[in-house]
C-alpha cells in the first residue's frame, strides 16, 4: 500500500506547484508531474507479483501475465499528455511574446 500513497504524494506535489507557482512554465511542469503520477498509479494497480510482461511466447505460454488493459490505456494517455503539454507551451510562448513576462498575476493585470 505504501507505493500507492507515495504515488499520490507525487500527485499532491504537482497540485501544490499548480496552486502556489506564478510562473507559467512552472505550472506546465507541475501539470506534467501530476500526469506522470496518474500513469504510474494505473500501472501499479495492474501489477501482479511474479507476473511476466504481457508478451506471449508461443513456444511455452505461461499463465501469469501482468494486466495488459491498464498498460494499453496508459499508452494512449501518455501520447495525449504530449499533445496537451505542447499546446500549453505554445500558448505560454504566445503570452510571453505579447506581455514579455511569464508571471500570471502580471498578465492578469495587463488584460485588455
Amino acid at each position, binding site marked *: 500500500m505504501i507505493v500507492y500513497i507515495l504515488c499520490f504524494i507525487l500527485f499532491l506535489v504537482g*497540485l501544490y506547484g499548480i496552486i502556489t507557482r506564478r510562473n507559467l512554465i512552472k505550472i506546465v511542469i507541475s501539470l506534467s508531474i501530476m500526469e506522470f503520477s496518474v500513469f504510474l498509479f494505473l500501472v501499479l494497480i495492474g501489477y501482479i507479483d511474479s507476473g511476466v510482461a504481457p508478451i506471449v511466447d508461443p513456444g511455452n505460454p505461461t499463465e501469469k501475465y501482468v494486466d495488459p488493459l491498464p498498460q494499453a490505456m496508459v499508452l494512449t494517455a501518455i501520447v495525449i499528455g504530449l499533445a496537451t503539454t505542447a499546446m500549453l507551451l505554445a500558448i*505560454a510562448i504566445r503570452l510571453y511574446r505579447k506581455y514579455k513576462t511569464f508571471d500570471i498575476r502580471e498578465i492578469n493585470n495587463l488584460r485588455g
Partner: protein
Amino acid sequence: MELTLSILIGFMIVGALFAIHAGDLLSAVITTGIVGYSLVIAFLLLKAPDLAIVQIVIETITLIIMVAVVLDSTREELKVKNDFKSYANILLSLIFSAVLLFFFLESISGLNLFGEHTLRMSEAYITEATEKTGSINLVTGVLFDFRGYDTLGEATILFAAALGVLTVLRIKSKK
C-alpha cells in the same frame, strides 16, 4: 520490489519538489527529466516494456520542446516577494492536499494489496487475444484491435493538437 519502487518514487518526489522550487527555469525543465526518466525505470520494473519505450520517446520530445521554449523566451525565474496572497495559496494547497489524501486513503482501502491484483475482464484478453488478433504482444492486441477506435481518437487528438500549436504560433499580433 515494493521497497525498490518506494525508493524510486521517493526520488521522483524529490525531483519534482526541486523542479517546482528551482531558481532558474532551465534547471527546472532539466529536473523534470528526472521525474520522467525515473518513470521509465518504474515502468520497466513493473513489466511494462511498451510503456517504457513510449515514455522515453515522449519525455525526450517534451524536454526538447520545453528547452526550446525556455531558450526562446527567458530563463530567469520571477523575483517575487512573498505577500499575503502567496501565503494564502500555500495554506490553501496544504488544506486541499490533506482533504484529498484523506479521501484517497478511504478509497484505496477497497483495492487489493500491491502485487495481488485479480484479473477480471483482462482474463479474456489474455486467453483469447493471441488467436483472435494474431499479435503475441497483448498490449498491442488490445490497443490496435479490441480498442482500435480509441487509438483512432488518439491520433485525431494528436492531429488537432498539432494544428492548434501551428495556429497559435502563427497568429500575427494586433500591435
